[in-house]
């Protein structure tokens, strides 16, 4: 809120410092438009963690759309600008669908190459676009706008019109970032695997981020056309993507004001350095390298980090015993008619020549607590990965509540009510403890809603509170998850899984690395949890396994060696020979 008021004040008073001279006002207007572009860019980079080098296509298509509509069809300003933004949106969807088959820097490279197709299209379609000469003669001053205003020749009026549009766009972007979709984007950025395990279709979330980024980049492109009254071909060349990347990182990602500061810096360098120095790009490039190396948070990011003092965490000793998980899991839902909740038939997974899981037949009844044990390399974690859709099986079927779920992706499996924890702690380290649980709970309510505040979802908040309370993590709610102790992170690991309100919970070595005391508490907690949800747990601590399980399945070399009650397993000769080695 403080940031917004500051932004409004700066926007309103900036012309004062510019002495109202047309040159400075023009420059200021340009800084604002590029700032909006950088902010839109940062929606993708800073908030969804996707590095794009194809934004020249979004801004360029929009600039040409608006330009062509104005020049050839004498459309009024507002619809022409809106059409430009929509052009950016559609371009980003097209590009996003293609590139999101890949990730990381590979994706970045693809965006760059694909965006150049648009450049060449403009270059070839000379009759409409003007080719290398750009698109000029835009009759902007003569066009009336339906809302009654005219874009006056006076730079000061033009400045305030643009500033108003940009302030509104900023509000809109801020709103979207605080919405359920915005939070899902952050989760995907922080830990894509876990976000998928919470039920989020991470590719679609990123596509949504592309769309938002594309729409506002398009708005910036359309405004650029109106402000310059000209569309230079450079607007759609890939170096435009490089420019917006530099601006965003100068100012700092994941901040609302950073992109504007970055745009200001870049344009200042361009205009003032180039006045005195012929080779100004040396300095822009050099400054960029230095900022990446030494100020990875950018200027605004570094300032806010230095200025913001986090309140000290109240030191709360974790509860000696985790409380009764009553009400933590919803009412039991029907399993298949024969009482089987989950079943695998002949499940197989091979990696090259290695068979990790070899024809496993496995049934879990509703309400059961099953342990899966076996020596290292027996295929336990691979088995979990097959059940949760992380890996596609090489053969066999998986049935959940009587429905075939074989080959479903992780997010779809999660939405059906299967949740898991991981052997190696897999949490959202950069998010707060509360948000870790909240984002998992939100998955049961909404994924893509881009309006309304995520923090205002009452049911989600209530569930997150309950989970934190039951895991004894309520005092640390504002701490970042990565700052927790190992034991606390293991509890959070389970909490994230529970927050999705599962019918079926897979725990992969929940006590891994815990102290004996923590192990005891966790075992007791899992046992009490079993009254409310069906659980399969992989565990190495035999005391825990024998103490809490209803039944035990022993895996060896990817096959089921034995299955039975703890007493039966203890007496089983095969198990003693292979597993207990006595």
């Amino acid at each position, binding site marked *: 809120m403080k940031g917004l008021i500051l932004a409004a004040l700066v926007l309103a008073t900036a012309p004062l410092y510019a002495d109202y001279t047309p040159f400075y006002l023009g420059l200021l207007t340009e800084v604002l438009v590029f700032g909006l572009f950088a902010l839109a860019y940062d929606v993708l980079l800073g908030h969804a963690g996707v*590095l794009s080098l194809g934004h020249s296509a979004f801004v360029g298509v929009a600039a040409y759309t608006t330009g062509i509509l104005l020049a050839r069809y004498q459309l009024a300003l507002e619809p022409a600008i809106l059409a430009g933004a929509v052009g950016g949106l559609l371009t980003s969807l097209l590009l996003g669908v*293609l590139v999101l088959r890949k990730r990381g*820097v*590979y994706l970045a490279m*693809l965006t760059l*190459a694909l965006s150049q197709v648009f450049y060449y299209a403009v270059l*070839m379609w000379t009759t409409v676009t003007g080719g290398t000469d750009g698109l000029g003669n835009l009759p902007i001053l003569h066009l009336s706008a339906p809302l009654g205003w005219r874009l006056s020749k006076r730079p000061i009026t033009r400045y305030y019109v643009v500033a108003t549009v940009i302030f509104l766009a900023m509000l809109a972007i801020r709103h979207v970032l605080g919405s359920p979709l915005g939070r899902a984007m952050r989760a995907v950025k922080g830990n894509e695997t876990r976000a998928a395990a919470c039920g989020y279709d991470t590719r679609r979330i990123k596509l949504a981020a592309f769309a938002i980024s594309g729409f506002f980049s398009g708005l910036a492109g359309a405004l650029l056309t109106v402000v310059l009254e000209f569309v230079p071909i450079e607007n759609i060349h890939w170096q435009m993507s490089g420019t917006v990347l530099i601006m965003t990182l100068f100012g700092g990602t994941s901040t609302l004001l950073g992109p504007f500061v970055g745009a200001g810096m870049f344009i200042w360098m361009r205009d003032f350095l180039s006045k005195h120095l*012929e080779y100004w790009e040396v300095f822009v490039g050099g400054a960029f*390298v230095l900022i990446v*190396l030494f100020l990875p948070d950018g200027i605004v990011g570094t300032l806010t980090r230095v200025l913001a003092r986090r309140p000290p965490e109240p030191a709360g000793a974790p509860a000696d015993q985790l409380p009764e998980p009553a009400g933590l899991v919803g009412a039991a839902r029907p399993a298949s008619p024969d009482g089987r909740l989950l079943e695998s038939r002949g499940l197989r997974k091979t990696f090259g020549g290695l068979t990790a899981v070899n024809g496993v037949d496995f049934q879990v009844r509703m309400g059961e607590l099953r342990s899966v044990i076996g020596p290292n390399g027996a295929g336990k974690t691979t088995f979990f990965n097959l059940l949760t859709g992380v890996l596609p099986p090489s053969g066999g079927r998986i049935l959940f509540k009587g429905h075939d779920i074989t080959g479903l992706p992780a997010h779809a499996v999660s939405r059906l009510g299967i949740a898991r924890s991981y052997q190696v702690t897999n949490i959202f380290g950069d998010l707060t403890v509360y948000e870790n649980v909240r984002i998992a709970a939100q998955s049961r309510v909404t994924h893509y809603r881009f309006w309304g505040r995520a923090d205002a979802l009452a049911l989600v908040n209530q569930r997150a509170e309950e989970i934190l309370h039951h895991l004894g993590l309520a005092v640390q709610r504002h701490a970042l998850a990565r700052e927790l102790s190992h034991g606390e992170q293991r509890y959070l690991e389970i909490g994230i899984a529970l927050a999705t309100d599962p019918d079926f919970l897979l725990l992969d070595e929940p006590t891994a690395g815990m102290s004996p005391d923590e192990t005891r508490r966790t075992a007791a907690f899992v046992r009490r949890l079993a009254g409310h949800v069906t659980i399969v747990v992989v565990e190495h601590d035999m005391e825990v396994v024998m103490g809490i399980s209803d039944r035990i399945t022993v895996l060896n070399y990817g096959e089921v060696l034995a299955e039975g009650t703890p007493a039966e397993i203890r007496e089983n000769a095969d198990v003693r020979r292979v597993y207990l080695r006595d």
Partner: protein
Amino acid sequence: MNGCILILVALGLSIVFGLMGIINFAHGIFYMLGAYAGWLTVQVTGSFWLALLTAPAAVGLLGILVERGVLQRIYGTKNATFAGVLVTYGLAIMIPDLVRMTFGRPGKPFAVPAALTGSLFRLGEIDVHAYRVFILGVTAVLLPLLWLLLNRTNLGLVIRAGTSDNLMVQLLGINVAQTWTITYALGAALAAFAGVITAPLVAVAPEMGGLVLIECFIVTVVGGMGTFLGVVAGGLLIGEALALTGMLYDVLADVVIYLAMALVLLVRPRGLFGQEGMSEE
């Protein structure tokens, strides 16, 4: 022919990406600097053949400096692969301007070496130039050598092992930092070599790096990132596509390669020779 040069430049890009996970935006710069180093050698000594040695050596040294001075600062930091893209992009902006400062804006003419001027023989209607045959020959000799280096030597083994599991290689006690430096320098030297042999066909100019970089991206995407065969096939395919459309319908030449890439992406996202799951992160 076009394809030969693309293969040489793209190979370096692909090896560095495979090993270090960094898309090296400075790669085009090495190609451009190689051409300038070659031009300078010819100016001073008059020998094109000497330039074939000095340019890769000088640019390889520069590669060592860049890797040691800049890239080593970001390994192991959060988002190291992103940062790698960013710093090398910064260098790609800076260095062409430095070259303009030193050598001036206009391109430098670079004559075909005397021994290789003129046409060798006629193939139907077309004169086959001796220099083009030379490029073909040099690539034909160099590629098997590189393949041997990557597949039959210790260094190659470490590079390939590092490409599939870097941490494990480090745990085996192998000096990965040194391998990375050597690999990066090797890629730079290869690009510089390609820069020198291209120079007689085009004017040596500060902008030549940017263009070849994007074409190399496309080659590696089409062929499959991190695979030797993929780069060779992708390079030939893209090089020929460029040459053919350039001959038949000039305007389309640039678009065709992008469309080829989009097609490959849709039908076979990992590239023609790419392995499943590799280098997709």
